[in-house]
């Protein structure tokens, strides 16, 4: 029994670390796409992201006022983030944040990326062409 509990604990750690790795990689590539590979100051209300994103590539700031980009999850609506670009961690938040440019979220167990074409254009953001397949005209 003890063995089974330990096995479960370690395998969940393994799975969790694997999804975190993928998540970190995708969000970093999204930040790179938006920032054109320059050092970016980022605000996020996701504690998990603060832990998994590589701190040497981005600068975390405490609120949106000093940030180039915000990455937000659902916990609460961040009112101070109206003037900066936002990447949401849920598809539905794209509608709630008019200045959100894209989203990363898990859909049917699969990682999904969306960039909204009109919002990128409005904010004069040109993203790397490798992300073209993720650019959408509409928010559904």
């Amino acid at each position, binding site marked *: 029994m003890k063995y089974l509990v330990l096995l479960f604990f370690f395998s969940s750690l*393994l*799975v969790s670390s*694997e*999804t975190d790795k*993928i998540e970190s990689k995708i969000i970093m590539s999204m930040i790179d796409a938006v920032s054109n590979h320059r050092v970016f100051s980022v605000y996020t209300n996701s504690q998990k992201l603060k832990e998994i994103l590589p701190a040497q590539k981005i600068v975390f700031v405490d609120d949106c006022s000093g940030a180039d980009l915000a990455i937000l999850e659902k916990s609460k609506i961040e009112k101070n983030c109206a003037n900066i670009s936002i990447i949401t961690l849920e*598809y539905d938040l794209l509608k709630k944040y008019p200045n959100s440019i894209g989203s990363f979220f*898990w*859909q*049917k*167990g*699969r*990682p*999904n*990326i*969306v960039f909204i074409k009109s919002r990128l254009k409005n904010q004069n953001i040109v993203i790397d062409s490798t992300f073209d*397949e*993720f650019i*959408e005209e*509409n928010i*559904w």
Partner: protein
Amino acid sequence: MVKNFHYWLYVTGIISIVSMILYLYVSFSKKENEMKENIIFNKLETILIQHEKIENWLEEECQENQNIQECILLNPEKSKMLNTMLHMTINQDISYSFLVFKDENNRYRFLADGASEPARVMQKIDTDNKKVWDEAYSSVEGTLISSNKQTDGLWLTYLSPFVENNQSYMMLVTDFSISLDNKIKNTISPIKEILLYILGITIVIFVIGIFQTIMYFIARKESFTDQLTGLNNRNYLRKVIDSRFPYDKYDIAIVDIDFFKKINDQYGHDIGDIVLKDISNIFKKIIGKDDFVFRYGGEEFLFLFQKNNAEKLLKELMHRVRTHVINVNNQTIKFTISVGVNKNLHRCKHFTNMVKTADVALYNAKRSGRNKIVYYSEEINDKNQSNFQAVQSAIDENRVFCEYQAIIDTSSNSVFKYEALVRIKDTNGTTLYPNSFLEIIKDTNIYTDLTKKVIDISISKFLDLDVHRFSINLGLQDFNNPEIVNYVLKVIEKYPKLIDLMSIEVLEYDKVDDEISCIAMVKLLQDKGLKIALDDFGSGYANFSTILSYNFDFIKIDGSIIRKVIEDDKAVKMVQSILAFAQAHNIIVICEFVYSQEVYEVLKSIGVEYMQGFYLSKPSQDLERKL
């Protein structure tokens, strides 16, 4: 052979168990796969039924629409209905079930979703393997693919396209939960785990067994190896010489390092050890694949050479040893070896006899100057053998007797003491004298037996008379023989009177091997009260240097000097000198070989008190002076 059989039995047993477990493990793995296939087949059947249901429903509901996608997109009620239908299929084993279609940009978009919180219609979905999805979408049959278990907790995905006029217009995606895989595994796993557990234990037992076997062989090898030289030892010899050993194909050689004791005494035991190691290395290099070499004793080595090799290898061996030099502390040490070879092993009944025979040859090599190889000769053997047997049977059959020759105190013309002289009567009744048998039996047990016999005969002759003293003869080497010394100690303890009656005359045949021990033994007997005489003084090793080492009570001047006293003044002067020296050290001088009145007169004139010889008394079994 029996032990080897046990090892093979053990190894075979372990291999059988491991094979059996592996067979069962593979069988259960196959069974697991079969179970999976059966379960998947059942699930797919359900999915296909669902697929057909949806297809039929769409045919009915969207028959007016040319485009089914539009039919669904434009009718939220129908979309809801589809969601409900898909929701029916979701259970513990199926995580997701949804309908997608491909837009003009080749992106997959939701049409319907069976989840409790369905995805938005038209919302894009990124696939984990787009190429496979595209292939599945364009095929007419369903495709089962593996999912990424680590990230999405999915096991398998079944992609089932809806086709009309050979054209897919949407696809049912069904994701099987990893829990289904786990369920199957959990059914089989305990058995597989038990098998793996047994396999693990078996392997551990096997490894322990192998380890113990290796340790056993190491210990066995150590027990068969001489630690100093790395050669085989006597234990291994005992193992080799079992009844199956092909003695007819081998020669035995015994090799002894000449004067090894001297090397030890002169340079120390550490250097002695280096000599032993060096010579052992030479031996190792020289012997053939099927030859054997054993450290047989301190500096003695036994070889079993294959017949066709023996002579050549022994010559090579002698050459290498002679040319080998050891440099220690700027000193060069060279040494030689003596070798005795027995080439006729088949003539000996037992291994002991084979070695004894080689030992006789070695003895002859040493006697004839060392540093040589002596092959045992059958002729000498026969002669020696018959002499050995003659002496042995004489002892066994009580044909050993003593003659006694008086030593006369010329001052009183009375018997000072008798010297016991051993004789053997052969089977024909002829009396044999020591010169015909003593040399042959020297260094053998027969010699020791004979010495004891002479002591016994003399004691029985003189003990009861209690009036005459007598002396027995021992070689100086006999004092290095614990059996003889202990026997003398035993008899004087048993018959204390012997201390006054008996004395020992020491004949110095050869230079003794261990002089320190010899001096100690002589002193031990003197401390017990026995008188010790040095016989044959003035010949061979019996000279003044011997007197310096021992405190003899008597010296008996050798006959070779005495016989010249009537013609050579130097001999007279020599006797006078010995007398003067002896008087100064309280040593009694006896002159032997007094064969005539003239000799007697000369000796008497220079003050010799004790004399022995045919002129005075001949040896006799009786204690009477026979002139």
